[in-house]
């Protein structure tokens, strides 16, 4: 069919948001979405997802396991703007308000195969000194002292922490210079990447391809 000269290549990503390490927090859920360039178009699967709430494992690892599947297929004509997955993790604070616990992003791996990525997560810092000061840096968020009038802040009360206007900004560089962030934890992702026709279009995404052809030359047809 048209396989002889494809006009797009496909990138199939599946995998899962496996687990997270947020030593201070519990009962978190995560959202993911993809950020990609103009030449990219999702053709199948889900671009966004929101996971279940998970609690810490009771063992030493204290891992927050979601095992939340990702499955999306993109088509593209240009590796520029290669998809990035943007993760944002939310969880309740002591008052039960959902607040953001971390943002993070990582490119979908380029080469086909199984990849595991651990993303460091971060949250924007508050501009207000007061709020920063009152930010609960408690090690045991489960049993905080009752916040007195001065050791709390309204935003904390109301469960409003600084959040990005759009989680997708973490996949972009624009405007980041005005923000200050603090690192939070880690999220581990597992990707299974399959590409199609990339080599035919002259994009060699690494040594994983079995055919030994490199460079933009069209590959040989099936050898007899």
């Amino acid at each position: 069919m048209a396989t002889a000269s494809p006009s797009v290549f496909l990138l199939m990503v599946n995998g899962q948001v496996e687990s997270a390490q947020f030593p201070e927090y519990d009962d978190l859920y995560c959202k993911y979405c993809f950020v990609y360039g103009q030449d990219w178009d999702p053709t199948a699967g889900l671009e966004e997802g929101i996971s279940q709430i998970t609690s810490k494992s009771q063992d030493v690892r204290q891992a927050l396991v979601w095992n939340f599947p990702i499955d999306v297929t993109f088509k593209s004509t240009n590796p520029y703007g290669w998809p990035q997955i943007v993760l944002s993790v939310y969880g309740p604070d002591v008052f039960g308000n959902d607040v953001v616990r971390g943002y993070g992003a990582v490119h979908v791996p380029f080469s086909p195969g199984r990849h595991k990525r651990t993303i460091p997560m971060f949250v924007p810092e508050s501009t207000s000194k007061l709020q920063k000061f009152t930010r609960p840096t408690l090690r045991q968020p489960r049993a905080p002292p009752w916040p007195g009038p001065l050791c709390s802040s309204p935003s904390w009360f109301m469960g409003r922490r600084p959040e990005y206007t759009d989680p997708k900004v973490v996949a972009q560089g624009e405007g980041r210079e005005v923000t200050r962030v603090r690192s939070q934890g880690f999220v581990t992702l597992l990707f299974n990447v399959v590409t199609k026709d990339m080599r035919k279009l002259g994009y060699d995404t690494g040594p994983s391809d079995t055919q030994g052809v490199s460079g933009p030359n069209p590959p040989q047809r099936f050898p007899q």
Partner: protein
Amino acid sequence: MVSEKSHRGNRQEPVQEEPKTHLLSMTVRRGPRSLPPIPSTSRTGFAEFSMRGRMREKLQAARSKAESALLQEIPTPRPRRLRSPSKKELETEFGTEPGKEVERTQQEVDSQSYSRVKFRDSARKIKPKPQVPPGFPSAEEAYNFFTFNFDPEPEGSEEKPKARHRAGTNQEEEEGEEEPPAQGGGKEMDEEELLNGDDAEDFLLGLDHMADDFVSVRPADYESIHDRLQMEREMLFIPSRQTVPTYKKLPENVQPRFLEDEGLYTGVRPEVARTNQNIMENRLLMQDPERRWFGDDGRILALPNPIKPFPSRPPVLTQEQSSKAELETLYKKAVKYVHSSQHVIRSGDPPGNFQLDIDISGLIFTHHPCFSREHVLAAKLAQLYDQYLARHQRNKAKFLTDKLQALRNAVQTGLYPEKPHQSLDTIQKTINEYKSEIRQTRKFRDAEQEKDRTLLKTIIKVWKEMKSLREFQRFTNTPLKLVLRKEKADQKADEEAYEAEIQAEISELLEEHTEEYAQKMEEYRTSLHQWKAWRKAQRAKKKKRKQAAEEHPDDEIAEPYPEEDLVKPSPPEPTDRAVIEQEVRKRAAQSRRRPWEPTLVPELSLAGSVTPNDQCPRAEVSRREDVKKRSVYLKVLFNNKEVSRTVSRPLGADFRVHFGQIFNLQIVNWPESLTLQVYETIGHSSPTLLAEVFLPIPETTVVTGRAPTEEVEFSSNQHVTLDHEGVGSGVPFSFEADGSNQLTLMTSGKVSHSVAWAIGENGIPLIPPLSQQNIGFWSALKKADAISSIGTSGLTDMKKLAKWAAESKLDPNDPNNAPLMQLISVATSGESYVPDFFRLEQLQQEFNFVSDQELNRSKRFRLLHLRSQEVPEFRNYKQVPVYDREIMEKVFQDYEKRLRDRNVIETKEHIDTHRAIVAKYLQQVRESVINRFLIAKQYFLLADMIVEEEVPNISILGLSLFKLAEQKRPLRPRRKGRKKVTAQNLSDGDIKLLVNIVRAYDIPVRKPAVSKFQQPSRSSRMFSEKHAASPSTYSPTHNTDYPLGQVLVRPFVEVSFQRTVCHTTTAEGPNPSWNEELELPFRAPNGDYSTASLQSVKDVVFINIFDEVLHDVLEDDRERGSGIHTRIERHWLGCVKIPFSTIYFQARIDGTFKIDIPPVLLGYSKERNMILERGFDSVGSLSEGSYITLFITIEPQLVPGESIREKFESQEDEKLLQATEKFQAECALKFPNRQCLTTVIDISGTTVFITRYLKPLNPPQELLNVYPNNLQATAELVARYVSLIPFLPDTVSFGGICDLWSTSDQFLDLLAGDEEEHAVLLCNYFLSLGKKAWLLMGNAIPEGPTAYVLTWEHGRYLIWNPCSGHSYGQFDIFCPLKNVGCLIGPDNIWFNIQRYDSPPRINFDVTRPKLWKSFFSRSLPYPGLSSVQPEELIYQRSDKAAAAELQDRIEKILKEKIMDWRPRHLTRWNRYCTSTLRHFLPLLEKSQGEDVEDDHRAELLKQLGDYRFSGFPLHMPYSEVKPLIDAVYGTGVHNIDVPNVEFALAVYIHPYPKNVLSVWIYVASLIRNR
């Protein structure tokens, strides 16, 4: 049984032992032991003494001991333990059987226990009684055997002898008895087995005897353990633990060969326990006699120990990934390794962060142009002294003297050896060697001594010269001072030594000479002998010849040839001692210090004083001044790039510069060159390069702290002549008065420095790895620099290089030399290799993956490129195709066309040329502004990125705490702010425009038609007209008109935006209330929802008010009873236009707006009477128009872009600018919401003080001429003129959020601008008309922050809306202006500091400082700022012909459009009506749409009597055609689908000066009445 054996053991006969002993393959040969006598001792001399025997002896001994001990009733003192340290045994022999071992030690302890011994003794006491034949058990024994329970005891007793035996064997070894080691283990084991077996048989034998006598007892069917063991031994092989002798492991007659000893590397063998090794060797020897398992050294072949001393596993990174992560298997495909050596540092190397420490301690000039003569001498002196010191330190003369002495001694001893054990030959030989060496050394020593002396002499000479110079010039320049210290030695000893030395030398020389003499004599003798022989032969020959000559005269020819005239050697002269002595003494006097002379030690010190300046002659003073002016610094060049420089230090009077700076060069590459450049600065002139100093790159072993300070000399070839005492450089000068003996000195000096590699924190030197240095470096450089690739960096002269290459005979075919060869070929062919241009990224070419041309040719790349440049056409282009062939050529067409048209004025679209030009100009300004703000747009604020609750202070904190207690659902809820959305990730359909139509006032009502209209047909009737009783328009008797409660008007509102139309339900009456929300989707142009794009949306929201008219379409009245057939007609009443940009920036628009109602609305009238009747007198009188209350917003709320947060350059006075900032800050503090403007940005992007814009400017004379006497009318006319200039927000025209103020002439040229331009122009006109006028900055609806004009007229203030031309009284409640921020006059700014800011509530008297805060005051008087406005506005007369042409074209376009909008219907044009309308329009223009309606109506009636006519004139300023089309479309005239409808459309354009065009469009639909 076992115990039995042990009991009986001692009585066993050797006979019985015999057969057993032979079973032992190897028995120990040893002499009898000196132990208590036992039966076996009788067998002294018996060679094959069995172990058993010995065992028994020991046993016996132990027993007897034990017995005696028991008798004495004293516990035994455990002699065994002392005797046989079991530990030792463990290690030596039995170490490998731990089980047994433990057992044994335990037993040993047990056996020592007292009770056992006792027991045994009791048993023994019985024993000796019956004398049983040897070998047989006694009866008791037999009995015991069967009855006694020996269980715990016998082991001990059995083990005891075993242990004893062990002790024995141990002893044997200790005695050094040679024993085949291989058998040790085996023997021991066999022995043990033997013991068992032996005893068993003994027992059986004994039993047999008994049985024979008494009963016939068959022996138990039992295979003797001995046999079994024997069988086992045959079958089983138990390898010995003894060391195998080497010879067994090697082939016959082969000596073991130890490779290690031969110097070959063998590696470390894995460690295996010795015993295991032995076992293995034994096993191998037994199994495989071929010995192929053994190496040459007789050991088992083994590979080197594969275990590394250090773990090679990478360290575990984090704790989190600890155990699980490590165990997890990751699938990775095999990677084909691609060697890439193109990077300077290869990936394998550690990332380079190396450091080179360069310590520049100082600089000393050995010559400098500013040197005075004295300095020259001083430098010379210092140099000589340095030399002297160096020589002194080495003291070569002394060394050579000592050597000479030693050699002499050696010769002395050699000549008279004490023990003549060596052959005389060798002695002679060595002595000869010594002698020659002595000769050599002496020569050297003499030379050295002479040098020392001359050096000393020179020093003294220079010092003298210096002294004389100082005397001569009468001042001192240098503190140098030479002191000659005399060291007096013991004269006598000295003299003796001197004499001895001379004597020794003389004797040596004599000896040499005699030797020489002897040799010569020998030579002489031989030669004499030869000579004699020759002479003899000669004589003989002569004789012969004489004879022969007579006989054979022919032969004579050849004869004289060999005849050589040997001279008779003269005997050599014997040497004369006196001569030699004289010679030696002379030489000694020359080179050596004479013994009476004291040793002179020169000492150079800086103790001298320099003559102060005031005592010096002028030339010298100026020299010193010059020196003071000079300063020196060094540049450090790394790989020919300047990396740092020292501070500039003044040159000291001593021409020394101390820097003492350490430069830490963080480097990545292996250094190629390291250069210091010496720069000298004289005064404030630019520095001159004196010299370059090349520093050697340190060895990798040289690290900081270990590097010695080195001095590198430099010199410069500069020529300097100075006009003072300084001698200059490169210029000849002389010390002599007559100028002879000239010297030419060059500037030179020394830099003391040290270069070393730094040491990292962990003590690792930060040196680039060798691999990089050798491979990476070179390979990388080979590409970059051919010369350095061959290791001769620094060679820059191509010719030299070529010469060198030719000389060194480089192989041109060697690929390594290829780049060099190419280089040389280029260089020698005359082409310059060094480019005369500078390139920043010289490797860029290599990194370009295609050439630029190819990039341009490819459509795909072009598309990508344009997209990344954000060219509007391509900004949102999605999915750029992969192949060029898939890209349509037409993609670029628009873009290319635009590019082409940039300078071509396209009139087609804009219809009139001026506007086309303006559009182009605007486009250009826009582009430049966009470029200007492109960077500024990149700035983001925190709010753009992060949503956060603000927490400003404690009070709010407390408030919010209080809020917690608030009711969740308060009775009076307050409006909550909506969440704002930044427009970055929106897409189509996300944004909706919400229009809430609340109510309207004073909608025109239908007017009962005149009689003519009323009864034209039976079939059609209008509800409103049906019952109109009176034909008179002026006497509307509504009460009778609508007896059935028929409404005057049934208005509904239709909102159209971006061609989407929504409408409300129909309400009734002139004051309808709809209260409906309409939702219209918003689509951004090109789907680009960026802020910039949204700002430039030009779309307008049209809010049209229609009257819904029902027409009965029944043809026949007879059918009326059965059905109603009506047709709905809609009649346009008016509209309100709100630009999207206003909504976008205001976020919401809430208010009552005047409906733009056409001046003539046929069939409708404003029902003033009715209003009057209803008592709205005041309102009605004030407002002549209809109003509609609206609420418009965007959902979700978009965050409008912030204005540019950038400081613009300004030509204003700095003080003024500061004052403006202060003023604004103060105002903002008091009333943050009130607009306060002091400076604005003009069109070229500079900040301008706002009052400069205000200046009286003349309105067009044309306008002034209209009402020469009526100022008020003129003012209105002028306002109208201004309002005719199209409104175009800056954001639309300039893309960015910037409020650019153009001057009035620019505004008139552009013919577009927003509120402030209109206001400024209007204000200027008013000022010119002599009015008191101010620019009023405030908020209005719907514009938001805007500019109005305030005038003072006849005791009241008028507020003018410059965009519409309307004026409002201060107390007009329908005035769109809602807040007043500040007033601006031509010479001052007043900020509103009153409590209220709405116009009706404030006082406009700016003279009251309590109400108005003025910018210029007494403290800051008005400086008299010049205006930015032109002196005068020049108006071109409007081109009437062009206007007429435009008029025709617009009419044509509109007609076409209307036909287009009615695709399914026939559109007929009523020419007659059109021409009527066309005549009417100029009238409208003249009267400005006032008070013409009635005449017009009458006229129309007259002409179009039998048509039902609905239509209206539209009036607009002209900017483009599109708004006109939109306006016509908005009226919905074309929507009539009555079959026989006809249309009329007339356009009139009235040109005003400066090409301001007023456009009138009369559009009407006509339906013929039947």
